[in-house]
């Protein structure tokens, strides 16, 4: 068991290091500007006085590394500074929306993960059948569709006929069941977009194993094909499947941006898009940091889980 803890500890340390580097990139990106941020925000026609005032307000008079440590230290305590557009504390803007975004991502994950595993196993079971070919062609198409196309097709089919609302205007007082109903279309859109990829990878991971001697052995002793896949192939295919599931969950968290805009859903993505068009850099940095942290965390989780799923990796010789 000791080896497991050490492995998890190592990965955690590595994850923290990655996050640190990401925070440097996110913060340091503003230093790429010719001139500085104040000049870029105000344009060429700015007077020296307004420039100086904005620099003072943004704290640009201090060297970059001091500003970085101040920013990071405050961010770790949940203080992201104030929005430049409306002067409200960013933490307040984010806190309610973060919950909404996580709810939507989890909702989509709860639908897409079981669905894609089921479809992947079935496609592997009936490989090269009509079902497999249709599922594959549909999956390839779904991967190539822009999210807003899928979203608007669903709106056209399901919202237009009055089954589901085309706008998911939830607020703090919306109940859970109501929330599930209001968010169904955005969640379904995300499900369709990520299911294809997960299904294809599940199928490929299982089929890769089908030529192994132990699969042939299981087949020769008269096991049913479904049992061969569930008992012998699936446990050995877990590592790649866990990885692709985590990758897609990470994608869900960032993929919500477009979907939130389509369905006017009050989440982080929508806030970020508004902040980008206002060039509200502090808000964008804060949200980028949150999204990146979620991304790193999920990849870390996948790494640990897929190592745990393979006993051979745990007892390295």
């Amino acid at each position, binding site marked *: 068991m000791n080896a497991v803890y050490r492995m998890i500890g190592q990965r955690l340390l590595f994850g923290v290091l990655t996050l640190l580097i990401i925070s440097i990139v996110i913060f340091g990106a503003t230093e790429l500007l010719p001139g500085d941020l104040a000049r870029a925000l105000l344009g060429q026609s700015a007077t020296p006085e307004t420039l100086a005032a904005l620099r003072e307000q943004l704290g640009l008079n201090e060297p970059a590394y001091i500003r970085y440590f101040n920013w990071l230290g405050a961010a770790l305590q949940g203080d992201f500074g104030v929005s430049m557009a409306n002067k409200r504390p960013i933490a307040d803007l984010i806190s309610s929306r973060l919950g909404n975004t996580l709810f939507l991502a989890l909702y989509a994950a709860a639908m897409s993960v079981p669905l894609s595993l089921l479809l992947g196993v079935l496609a592997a079971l009936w490989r090269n059948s009509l079902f497999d070919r249709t599922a594959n062609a549909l999956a390839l198409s779904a991967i190539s569709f*822009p999210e807003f196309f899928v979203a608007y097709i669903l709106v056209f089919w399901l919202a237009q006929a009055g089954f589901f609302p085309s706008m998911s205007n939830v607020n703090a007082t919306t109940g859970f069941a109501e929330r599930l109903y209001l968010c169904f279309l955005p969640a379904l859109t995300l499900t369709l977009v990520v299911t294809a990829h997960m299904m294809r990878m599940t199928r490929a991971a299982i089929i890769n194993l089908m030529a192994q001697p132990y699969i042939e052995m299981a087949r020769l002793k008269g096991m049913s094909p479904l049992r061969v896949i569930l008992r012998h192939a699936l446990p050995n295919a877990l590592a790649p499947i866990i990885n692709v599931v985590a990758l897609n969950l990470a994608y869900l968290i960032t993929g919500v941006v477009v979907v939130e805009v389509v369905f006017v859903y009050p989440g982080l993505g929508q806030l970020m898009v508004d902040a980008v068009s206002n060039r509200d850099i502090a808000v964008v940095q804060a949200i980028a940091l949150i999204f990146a942290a979620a*991304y790193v965390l999920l990849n870390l989780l996948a790494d640990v889980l897929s190592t745990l799923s393979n006993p051979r990796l745990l007892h390295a010789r």
Partner: protein
Amino acid sequence: MGFVYTGLYIALALIVAGILSWLFRAALVTVMPRQTARALRTAPLTASFGMLTVLLYVLVALFAPLIAPFAEREVVGAQYLAWEAPYYLGTDALGRDMLTRLIYGARNTVGIAFATTALAFIVGSLLGLWAATVGGWVDQLLSRFVDALMAIPALIFSLLLLTIFGTSVLSLILVIAAVDATRVFRLARSVAQGIVVMDYIEAAKLRGEGMWRLITREILPNAMAPLVAEFGLRFCFVFLSISALSFLGLGIKPPTADWGSMVKENAALITFGDITPLLPAGAIAWLTVAVNFVVDWQLHRASGLKE
């Protein structure tokens, strides 16, 4: 009932597409030189459908001013007119002809996506090949730098960069190219690493070939197959992210005709049961699917699988 009709239309469209692709493949086989024709004969229908589509888009993009009935930015009538002649697909929110803007969109959206991909590709693959060939600390430095950039989700990173540099077409191209170049770098480097250990590279080095010649004459030709497939896939990614950003109002902006922003501008129509705003979105999806089909075929060919 609506679903039955939709199903019938889709089935009909698939049959027509199948016949057209079959004819197109037959035509290609007779026109092309022998070597190419042999490869084409075994191409699946999906691949020939993909090639037909790409050809169609290129033609529309090249001859847009000749095909389009009106000028790109011309206001020709009232807003949201129905699908009647002379406005075959109606008009948009400002009364501009929808069909015209769809046709010009092929030029703007696809053109910008192609330029961006090409830029990302040149920068990414040259740096990747160079890093693999030189090795040592240059390789370590570049690779770790790219790793750090890739740890941030692509869309989020592009949004961050767009905030900093402002939203214009030029910064859109540069930002997306920079983000995607990191992915190309990864692939080019890993492909080249398998090649630089070969004996003929050693021989070329001993012959005294310079770095540029080594990369372009010895390594690049042998890394071509995976890179070409990657170009197709990368184009799809770039095309989709540019459309997504334009849709969000952060990419190509009106009055330039662009498919992503056209969907956004006219989205209100969908709730009234009008499918016009789905057309530009469909145009994006169609091209992406087509390119994916061709890439799928090429990858299958390159892998040497006979199934």
